């Protein structure tokens, strides 16, 4: 069996969500690595867009931030942020948006604003940035987050970025399309039930059990009937991640599991 870290598995799993030709709104860290991995493996026609305005990037180094100059040099287009949000995102051009956050709840709502009360926060987080509009306007959203009772509460303290809200048809009734498709944690992968729109455990990463998941999730999480095991990254994938995408281990090696 190949040697790999949990982060590498998350990157590999996220990459599989991307099809050739997809237009992808990319963030830093796991999303960036996943998109670049997909680009090298099975989706050479994939188009990466960063909210900083860089389109069709071919970064020569691992971008440190979404405004890294390496995203500009050699890209296909660099556009004003007004265009990023109006003409790409709101216009409906973004196939997949990647999001993270401090908390994700049972219905895929994301909190990246505050822990505790908004007026008197226990922890003040960075806030939405472009996350709220990605959650509202991308055709599909993939979420990556750690799996714990703290990060996966039944209800987020603050809905920064709407998922399915209180479930069922609430999101649709407000005129929103899209929605979260997949949550990838360090323990497993979740999908959303078609009717209730509740997060359901769809696959377990090798070495994890339903029991561990239940102990590390903030509500009594449902498990899919056809629960599978998340396929580990191939040797090729880990090689690309380690040698080409993150050779200095900026994002992944430090978190090696």
């Amino acid at each position, binding site marked *: 069996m190949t040697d790999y870290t949990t982060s590498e598995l998350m990157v590999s799993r996220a990459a599989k969500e991307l099809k050739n030709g997809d237009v992808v709104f990319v963030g*830093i860290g796991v999303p960036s690595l996943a998109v670049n991995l997909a680009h090298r493996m099975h989706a050479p026609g994939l188009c990466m867009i960063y*909210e*900083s*305005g*860089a389109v069709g990037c071919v970064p020569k180094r691992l971008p*440190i*931030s*979404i*405004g*890294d*100059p390496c995203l*500009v*040099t050699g890209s296909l287009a*660099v*556009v*004003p*942020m*007004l265009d990023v*949000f109006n003409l790409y*995102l*709101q216009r409906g051009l973004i196939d997949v948006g990647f999001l993270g956050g401090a908390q994700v709840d049972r219905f895929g*709502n994301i909190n990246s*604003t505050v822990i505790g009360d*908004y*007026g008197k*926060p*226990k*922890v*003040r*987080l*960075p*806030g*939405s*940035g*472009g*996350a*709220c*509009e990605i959650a*509202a*306007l991308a055709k599909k959203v993939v979420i990556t987050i750690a799996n714990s009772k703290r990060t996966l509460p039944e209800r987020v303290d*603050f*809905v*920064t*970025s*709407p998922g399915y*809200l209180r479930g069922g048809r*609430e*999101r649709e009734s*407000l*005129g*929103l399309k899209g929605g979260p498709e997949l949550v990838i944690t360090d323990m497993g992968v979740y999908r959303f039930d078609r009717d209730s729109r509740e997060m359901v455990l769809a696959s377990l990463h090798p070495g994890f059990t339903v029991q561990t998941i239940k102990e590390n999730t903030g509500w009594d999480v449902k498990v899919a009937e056809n629960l599978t095991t998340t396929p580990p990254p191939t040797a090729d994938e880990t090689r690309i991640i380690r040698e080409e995408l993150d050779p200095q281990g900026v994002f992944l090696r430090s978190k090696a599991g």
Partner: protein
Amino acid sequence: MTKLMTMKDAVARFVRDADLVVMEGFTHLIPFAAGHEIIRQRRRDLTLARLTPDLIYDQLIAAGCVRKMIFSWAGNPGVGPLHAFRRAVEQGRPHPLEIEEYTHFGMVLRFMAGASDLPFLPTRNYPGTDLTRVNPAFKKVRSPYSDEELWCVPALRPDVTIVHAQRADTDGNTQIWGLYGVQKEAAFASRRVIVSVEEVVEPSVIRSDPNRTLIPGVIVSAVVHEPFGAHPSFVQGAYDRDNDFYVKWDAISRDEATFKTYLDDWVYGLDDRAAYTGKMGARRGELQADRQMCAPVNYGF
């Protein structure tokens, strides 16, 4: 008449206590030199607006210049939280900080509405988010073409916007390449505009490539020649981001004492940006950009 002046004069003349001040630049071209001069001139009660407050607003908050912040993402990009910002919000130190919070899209639309002299602009964003619950400035409008209701954000009209750019002429015709951010929209939304640049050029350079002019001289109040004026952020084609400093800032800003030392060493203790870049020493050369010129185009007819 030339608008060229020192940063000291530009801040003295165009940035006033209690102003609504914008220093824009999305990761790229952040006007740090201007921020330090504002700290040095001890402006007070400022309302600062900006998509990503970044280190520059963290420094202004810690230095006691700021009463209120309007923003959409307050972090140290790629590193972690902004500690001075968090101290002000969570503990009210050095004094309480009022906040008014949007998203990136919302801030961009606020600037664009201000730049267009419109009271508001609509968007399909915001159904379901709690942001509209905690910020009453979000309001709804009904489309006159259907029954759709859309959320709106109100125009933002800063007293002064400060941007850093690659080059301008002395009239303030300013060219930027690489990431554009929202500099154009913020500048047009403002009553006064200060531009600091890596290079002051002859009008003929600007006129050789008019499509690159992002900010026209007609809206500019002051032009400041300030090489390395965006350090520790970056300038495409000039110098890379000084990521070591972004990482160090995390430690510096965790503690009010270490912050005070930084301020004494790098702001109060220096006369101007020339002194700052002198103090940078060899670091400047390490950050120097590689050369990767664009294919030129023909403007003839």
